[in-house]
């Protein structure tokens, strides 16, 4: 039996009368790619925001590596090994692609309260950053400002940033959102190459991508997990078909 990296315990969150997380219990195992699917408004992004620390839950616990992180800030969680990409791309537009990644490396290696040495010339940071860019096939765009990259390239840059801090848990919020079919193919290939090396929580709308990537799938409907299991099992689940896949197919 594999060890659980992340455990959610009765996580609950409401926005006014709208309950976006209703006693969610979930386990992400070490090394697995766990996908969360669900119709629009099911609370997927709210869930990932609570896990990453952008949103505080009303009740429940988030346990990471045996440690309760429910009250921790986003930055503190990042230091423990959380890394995330965003549904709406979040890069530093005025920094080069390389510096975007190098900053993530900097966050994990040594103090950032250094005031004299030029950061852009730190070879040990840049070396790791270049390797991370190579993983997502973006090395030749290293010197381009992130704001001038194409949408698909930005999405890959986000993954490179996430990989740069040697994460224990990757939280990917719709990494394929808005990407063309060619870009989606590339992104799936990239993520496939990461499979098994990282524990990944993937929120995604693209069903083909989900079934190609996920080891296990959880289905979130109206703030509740209605099914968790291997792709074939989930696909066959009558409740899931009724609530979600039925609409799609």
């Amino acid at each position, binding site marked *: 039996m594999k060890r659980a990296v992340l455990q959610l315990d009765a996580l609950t969150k409401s926005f006014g009368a709208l309950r976006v997380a209703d006693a969610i219990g979930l386990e992400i195992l070490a090394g697995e790619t766990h996908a969360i699917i669900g119709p629009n408004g099911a609370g997927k992004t709210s869930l990932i925001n609570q896990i*990453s620390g*952008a949103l505080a839950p009303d009740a429940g616990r988030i346990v990471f590596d045996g440690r309760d992180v429910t009250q921790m*800030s*986003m*930055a*503190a969680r*990042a*230091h423990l090994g959380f*890394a*995330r990409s*965003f549904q709406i791309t*979040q*890069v*530093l*537009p*005025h*920094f080069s692609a*390389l*510096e975007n990644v190098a*900053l*993530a490396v*900097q*966050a*994990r290696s040594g*103090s*950032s*309260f*250094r*005031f*004299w*040495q*030029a*950061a*852009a*010339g*730190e*070879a040990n940071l*840049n*070396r790791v950053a*270049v390797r991370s860019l*190579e993983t997502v096939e973006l*090395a*030749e765009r*290293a*010197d381009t400002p992130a704001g001038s990259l194409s949408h698909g390239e930005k999405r890959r840059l986000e993954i490179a*940033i996430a990989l*740069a*801090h040697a994460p224990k848990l990757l939280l990917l919020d719709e990494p394929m959102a808005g990407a063309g079919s060619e870009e989606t193919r590339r992104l799936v290939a990239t993520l496939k190459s990461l499979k098994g090396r990282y524990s990944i929580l993937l929120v995604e709308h693209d069903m083909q991508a989900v079934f190609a990537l996920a080891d296990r799938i959880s289905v979130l409907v109206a703030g509740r997990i209605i099914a968790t299991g291997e792709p074939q099992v989930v696909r066959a689940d009558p409740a899931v078909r009724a609530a979600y896949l039925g609409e799609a197919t």
Partner: protein
Amino acid sequence: MPRARRAIPAVAPKAPPALTFDQRLAAGLFVLLALLPLLSRGIASSYLLLVGERVVIFAIAALSLELLIGAGGLVSFGHAAFLGIGAYAAGIVASHGHGTLSIALPAALATSALFALATGAIAVRTRGVYFIMITLAFAQMAFFIATSLAPYGGDDGLTWPTRTMLWGRPLLKDQLTFFYLCLALLIASYLGVGRLIASRFGRVLRGLKDNETRMQAIGFAPHLYRLTAYVIAGTLCGLAGFLLGNQAEFVSPAYMHWQRSGELIIMVLLGGTGTLYGPMLGALAFLLLEETLSRLTEHWKVMLGPALVLIALFASGGIAGAIAAWRQRRAMGARLALPLARRHRLGAARKGSRSWRRAGLRLLSRTARGLRRGADAARAACAPAKTALGRGLQALPSLAERRLKATVVRWWRE
């Protein structure tokens, strides 16, 4: 191995690069300032040197504000508080007979740093307009504290017993020594702020300005970095205040007035934020405008206002932005034109620009004359509005205080 070859230039630039255009501009500015005493020796008065000292001192203050605005995205509307605090701290210890450099300067810097730490700890929790309001409120508090410092002159200000003593001698009394000391400190500030912005810390600060969410997600907690920047900028501006107090051998609450804070912002924006030479040029341009326009008319701000509006409309990057745009145009022209055709066209353009300049000057002087006449007429007509405006401005600090109080209370409850 094409991949490895591509990676190398990104990893380590080999030779130390020559001075960039920006650095050469800054160096030129420093040389020009350094030559100023030669010029002013010809003129009987040391008036020019006095203006030069003010330019240099305010350039230091503008640099410190640029660290907040340009690198940190923190528009402080209370930065002049540090000018006053630096000058008051040094003046007060001097009035107790401790006017030596080894005491007065550390007192000025430490007081500024402490004030920045205490107020910044609250201010950096807010963003945007709220940050502007809260820094304004703190500066107004400092202003009113200074006006109520009865033992140290209160409203009238505090006259320093002497300029700061160096090695037991009044060395700074000598105008040349003082001027070059200020200039040396400006150059040191320029180099220091430049290193700081390029450093690990500066990169985090710039990253937080660019996209705070992304920076948090990779593990940077914003408050601590912003607070550190605020303390560094406040201390540096405290140094400028120390020099300003020395220059005048006097300090008054007016040093911290919110108008002065506004002028510092104008210097940074007029010069062009995002570069280091920009704010320094901005300080130079602003003070020269002030000197020349205030000689034309006492209502010189009537002309400064429209000039600033025009800059905001047509040169949003300030002087630095205009220079960058000009360089880009020139570089493009040089690439496009054949050498011969280019010489021809340049000649024509030069002629054209000369007549344009004449027309521009005519327009400017006519506008100035019109404005002066208009201002005199407007003054008579607008007296009631002026008192109303004055009352409104008096109400502004109390509004800011209320806002601050609410924030503090909320913060406390949290």
